[in-house]
Every structure is written in C-alpha cells, then in structure tokens.
C-alpha cells in the first residue's frame, strides 16, 4: 500500500482550495454533483495508475461515517 501520495504535494494549498470551492459557485446541488463527477473522471485519467486509484477510492470510502456513527453524534 501507500502508493497513493498523502504527503503535501500542492505548492499553494490555499489557492487550490479556493479554486475548488469557486468551481461550485452558483451551482445548485445537482449541478455541483455533476461538476464533481467530471472532476473525478478527469483527475482519475490523469493519474492513470489503477493501484493508486483503487487506494484513493478505498480511503475515500473508509472516511464516510457509518450510519451508527452518524446516529450517535449529538444533534
């Protein structure tokens, strides 16, 4: 494992983050979902390496709180 680079790799993190949020400006939830899908597909192709992509997908899913986590959280 650890083929996926999880160390800092973006030179100007605040600039990137701002651009990411900007990408969604004036979009409704459905449109944002589309834009995210486009972004994921574009980046996935750029990465190309299937092992890296699978590790990223696994990490992305693992971070989703399970339903019991959600229900025990204070409102």
């Amino acid at each position, binding site marked *: 494992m650890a083929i996926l680079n999880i160390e800092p790799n973006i030179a100007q993190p605040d600039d990137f983050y701002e651009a990411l949020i900007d990408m969604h400006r004036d979009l409704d939830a459905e449109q944002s*979902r*589309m834009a995210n*899908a*486009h972004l*994921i*597909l*574009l980046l996935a*192709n750029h990465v190309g390496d299937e092992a890296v992509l699978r590790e990223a997908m696994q990490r992305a899913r693992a971070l989703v709180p399970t339903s019991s986590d959600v229900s025990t959280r204070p409102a």
Partner: protein
Amino acid sequence: MANVDREYQGLAFDYVRSPDQDARVAVRHPVVVVGAGPVGLTAAIDLARRGVPVVVLDDDHKLSVGSRAICFAKRTLEIWDRLDCGDQMVEKGVSWNVGRVFFQDERVYSFDLLPDSGHRRPAFINLQQYYCEGYLHERTAVLPAVDLRWRNRVTGVTPDAEGVTLAIDTPDGPYALRADHVIACDGSRSAVRSLMGLESKGRVFRDRFLIADVRMKADFPAERWFWFDPPFHPNQSVLLHRQPDNVWRIDFQLGWDADPDLERQPERVRPRIRALLGEDAEFEFEWISVYTFACLRMERFRHGRVIFAGDSAHGVSPFGARGANSGVQDADNLAWKLALVLAGKAPDRLLDTYGTEREYAADENILNSTRATDFITPKSDESRVFRDAVLRLAKDHPFARRLVNSGRLSTPATLHGSALNTPDAEAFGGAMVPGSPMTDAPGTMRGHPAWLLSCTGDVFTAILFAGDRGFDEATIAAIRALGTDGIPVKVLIVTAAGATVPSVDGIDYFADDDGAVAARLDARPGTCYLLRPDQHVCARWRTFDADRVRAAVARATCND
C-alpha cells in the same frame, strides 16, 4: 416483386416420419442434437463434415420469427466459412464496422471495430436470424449425415452409463431414441435442461426493451447507432441497426414499469418511431417484441453424455451481441472434440475441456454484458451521475470514450490457461498467445488471392514460416509424416513476400505478400504455430520440431 426473404420467413418444413418410429427397440445414434437454431445447426454441420452422423430434433417446423440475434460477429462468420456457408451470410447481410454514440441531442463519438485492413470478414454483419437459420438449413440438406426431424419434441431425457434415452413426441405419437451423446441447443428455456432438473442461474435485470423491425426507405449508414437519453425518447436508450431488405431494427429501452402487452401494440409503437424518424415517416412493421433479460449460466455445461451449448447453457443481455455468437463458438469448440472421442482417437475427458473452456468464455461474456447493462441502465442516482458525466466528457475528451459502454461487442474469448495449451517456452510479441483464435491475413495460395484462415482449420494445422531457402529434405520428410499421423497435422508453409522458396509437391505454400502474417504472428523464419481444428492457437515455437508438434497435439487432445 418476388421477395426471397418473405419465403424464408414463411417457410414451413414438413414433418417426415422416420423409420426409427417403427423400430421395436429404440434405435441408437452417435449424436442427437436438440434444437435446429443457429447453434444446433452449426454443431450438426461441423460433425457431419467430420463423418459423424447426426440426428437433429426440433419441436417446431419453422425458422426464427423476426430479426432476433441480428448481429453476427467476425469470428462467427469465420466459423461458418470453415463450414462452407459464410459467403451466403455475408452476401445477404449488411456488413458494418462502425458504431456511433449519441447523448441527448449531440453526436458524442464513433468507434471502428475493425480498424486494420487485411481481413476477409467485417467486424459484423446484420442479418435476420431466419436467413441465418435458412442458410444453415440449406447446408444441412446437402449433408447426408444430417437427419433433421421437425416437430419432434423431446419429452424425456434418461441418461445412463452407456447412453441417453430420449422420449420424443411427434404428430404420429411418441417414440424413443438412444444416443451416445446429446447436445442440447434448445435455447434459454431448454426443455432438456428442465427435464434433467438442471438450472441456469444468475442475475435478472429489471428493465424492459421494445424491439421493432420496420420496413422503410431510409438513408442511415450501415453503422450501429446508439442514443443515450435522446430528445425523442427521454431518459432511456435507443439502438438502431440496418438489416437487409430495407428492414431496420430499433430497440427502445422502456424501463421496468412498462406494460409489455400494451407496449407491443402497433399503435403504441408507431409514435415512438415517428419521434425518431419524423412525423411523416412511412414504414410498416415486420415484427414487434418486448423483452427482458438476464445474465445467467449453468454451473457446468457438460453433464456426462448430455452437453449444453448456446442459450441453454448461458444467457447474456443483448448489448454486445454475445448470445448467438458465443453459442456458435460453443459448437465450434465441441464438434472436433466430440468427433475425436467418437472415433476413439481421444479420451472422454477431452469433452470435459469443452465445459471448462466454454464456461470460461461464458464468464467473460457475462462480465462484459453485465457491465454494459449497468452503464446503459444505471442502478443508482450516483451511477447515473457518473454515466452522464462520462457521456458529457466523451465528446471532447478522448479518454472518456473508452469508458462509454453501449455494449462491448462480441469478440471471441482467448482461452488463457486452458489445459490444452502448451505454454510458451520462447519469447513472442503480439496478440496470438496460446488460446487465442487465429487472426486472419491476406496472401496468395497456388497463384490465387487467399486468406490465411481459409487455409487452416478442420484438422490440426501447423503454420510454419520459411526462410529464403525453404526447408531441407529431412524437414520436408518430417512435415509429410505429420500429415499421416493418427491425428494428422496439416502443415501450411508461409513464405515472405518476394521470396523464391522452392515448392514441394503435396505441401501448401501461402505467400505472405503484405507481410501481414509475419507481423500479426510476430514470426521469423522457422517460427511455427500449431492451431487446433477450431483455429485456436495451442502452441508455438521459434523453430520447427515434429516431435514437439506431436507432443502439443497429444496435449491438445488429452492424449498426453
């Protein structure tokens, strides 16, 4: 106007009483094929050409109704070429190589399934199934070894150690037959399968599709057109194929909630077609059907002396044209093995490899067909979001075109890891690994233009690449000796363009005029490929050695 196709669609075959029906003891036959569809007829023709007498039983007395299977793939045509009935199919059929994909109101991209030239056959032909069956039927009619019996319905299957007893119902009442082997090609609702208490299991898709065969004058090209979510049929998919005789096949996705009885009413279908073609379009209906589908297969295709082939053994969704095409490949795989076993030249376990090889192929077909179905009919909101994102990207982003899945169209399975393959001991490039169906290539044979595949098959064939000087006498003697073995090996010598190799009587020379054979097989002088009777590569070497060829034949026939 005389309409040959009308005649095929309307043909009704006579029930003819067989002398077997008057026998006091059930008459024994080496092979009984159940089902006279494309798969059963292909198996019967292949076996009969090998000298095996075949009885074919069919519960009906007509050819298929409507276009049904419609798309016949290059490999299927090559198999029919080997059986001398490919020309008729291709002359009548509409040849095509290109598929075009649309999303909403835009053309997204197109793909070419056969970008290389130098192949005898196109990627696909479209041909109504009744023509296909009609031509195969005509082929059986000139083979005295095929005894085709219409309106013979199998009502009982009783296997025992020595054979199988079949109970058969006819217009004259019941009779029984004994068979050494039964090949069940009786379709997705196989009577043989249910009579034996066996099942085909898998995944049923909750979707319905409308098929309309319409006769009209139209100027769409001979391409496969697939629409995702078009304005004329929102939120669903539509598929258009051109067929012979100005007949067009249109498949409309309807969704699971559609009422099949209502949807097949012509007055209900007409506006759907007008929406596609325009309000003033003129057409008449040939056939309308509503279908659902499943991806399933039997756990094993061989049950002792009863062997399942085609839809009886496995089912796929229609996207990819992997149903009839894989069934014809089943027949291609089985016939030579069964003929060798019946002749006492190979042990019974060779028939087990029919099961393992074709179960492997069925899994590949089911995987491809399931993935296509999940793309065409997304099962969740998120799946649909990604599907539509891929389609939106595809127009201007080449990478996304590879993700669009409107059906991964039928290509034959490469039988990686088959026990019949002799693994490579030397380095080779290219696609022709052991287990792959041999590719085609153009050349010259005996002074006439020829195709590589047409010079191979039926028996084991060694393709041997000559250097500029040909082969010495000892090698020529070894090549001749292979031809007289118990399981003979025909040797085809391939000569490079411009080479003046001295020819030897009784040996076939194929001139590789364009260098395509050498390129596609990564060949050098001395390279030798061994093909099975079904044209699959089973071994290859960088130098010719008759003993290694014999060992590979023994391995490919379970005689090792």
